[in-house]
């Protein structure tokens, strides 16, 4: 049985990247605790619109934890606190206490400028992907699935890396604004498979160069990223990227 909770929501308003931004507050009354966090924000926006105020802007799309668009920094944790990690859209109000103040902020990182309120520009991730996160293959008839044998462990590991949805929580959590967990997951998902191996060195160099160019920080292995990743990516991926990158540079 759902029970109702009341709380104060303190949310970030900011008019574009240059604006200083500020918090606004609203008391939310009798919200059923099986409401999702984003549904709760929909209710907030209904109320704001009814009051003739500007609604609160935030990113979202699939609302089922697979697209990586939702991005809110809730009570000091990217995507809010859940047991095994989940995206903001998979966070439910039962995680909060009656009477609590809930603070909602955007991803704060120089490489992710605010577009409006809590919606940030994460196109830097797309640029890193475009720099090398693919394989160059001849298109045409699909090959027989068994033509290339792939050990089960490698396939599983590659799949785990591929579950990174590019949400940017790792960057938001990192005191260095580093994108290494994202980049290493995207490099790993291809480098672990035979189809990705021929271009592994080139890919690692190109994606790291793009990451540096776009102003992401230097990883100092604090592990804040893996603690908040909704897809449980680990810094073993970062070690793998370091290994590939160093090997590639030494071979040059």
């Amino acid at each position, binding site marked *: 049985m759902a029970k109702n909770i009341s709380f104060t929501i303190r949310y970030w308003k900011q008019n574009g990247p240059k604006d200083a931004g500020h918090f606004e507050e609203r008391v939310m009354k009798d919200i059923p605790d099986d409401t999702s966090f984003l549904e709760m924000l929909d209710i907030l926006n209904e109320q704001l619109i009814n009051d003739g105020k500007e609604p609160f802007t935030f990113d979202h799309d699939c609302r089922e934890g697979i697209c990586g668009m939702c991005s809110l920094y809730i009570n*000091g*944790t990217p995507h809010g606190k859940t047991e095994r990690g989940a995206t903001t859209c998979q966070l439910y109000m039962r995680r909060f206490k009656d009477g609590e103040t809930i603070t909602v902020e955007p991803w704060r990182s120089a490489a992710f400028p605010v577009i409006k309120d809590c919606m940030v520009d994460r196109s830097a991730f797309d640029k890193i992907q475009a720099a090398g996160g693919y394989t160059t293959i001849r298109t045409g008839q699909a090959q027989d699935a068994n033509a290339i044998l792939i050990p089960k462990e490698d396939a599983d590991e590659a799949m785990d890396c591929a579950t990174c949805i590019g949400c940017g929580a790792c960057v938001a959590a990192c005191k260095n604004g580093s994108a290494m967990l994202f980049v290493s997951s995207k490099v790993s998902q291809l480098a672990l498979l035979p189809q990705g191996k021929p271009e592994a060195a080139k890919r690692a160099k190109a994606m790291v160069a793009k*990451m540096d160019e776009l102003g992401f*920080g*230097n990883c100092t*292995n604090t592990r804040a990223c893996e603690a908040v990743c909704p897809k449980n990516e680990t810094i073993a991926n970062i*070690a793998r990227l*370091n290994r590939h990158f*160093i090997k590639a540079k030494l071979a040059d």
Partner: protein
Amino acid sequence: MWLTKSSIGKKVVMSVTGIALILFLTFHAAMNVVALFSGDAYNEICELLGANWYAIVATMGLAALAVIHIVFAFLLTFENRKARGQSKYAVTARPEKVEWASQNMLVLGIIIFLGLLLHLFNFWYNMMFAEIVGTMGAYSPSDGFAWIQETFSNPVFVVLYVIWIVAIWFHLSHGFWSAIQTLGWSGKTWFCRWKIIGLVYVTLLMAAFLIVVLAFAFKCAPSLC
């Protein structure tokens, strides 16, 4: 040059200089432990490491490592502050997994640097430097054993050295596995192993330094009895 331009390259420089400094500390700790048992044996090592050309070359190499490590530490920290951006979170929660030391490496490093200056003033200035310029303090430059006794008879120095040793322990409790991770010699299985190996190694290493300081502070080293 990728070692100075790319983020991973800069980290490799940090890692390699850091590991070299750990190896130096290992040698230094082994040497100190000798002083626990015999003043004569210790002074013989001091004699060997006096103002000989090889000791001076090694000292200069060591200084270069330290300078590179410190310069890159400030460079990386500066770049990371910039990447983090101007706007600060109003509320932050540190996840359990995140070690305190890992987020305070620069602060710990600065404490280590200050300790290093004190240490150079206490020993190097009175020993190798005195021998090079030919001055003479209260004791002979190669009488390291006397300099140890002299330094740790002062409780202020004892307290400062203990703080220094604790700061190095914290720095390396993160630094050891971090250096290995940076070089890519880690993974799902080896991460935990390196972490434990690092903690055990660094704890033994810093315990060796601590015991020598305390043994001379409380005048209970076997070599004094």
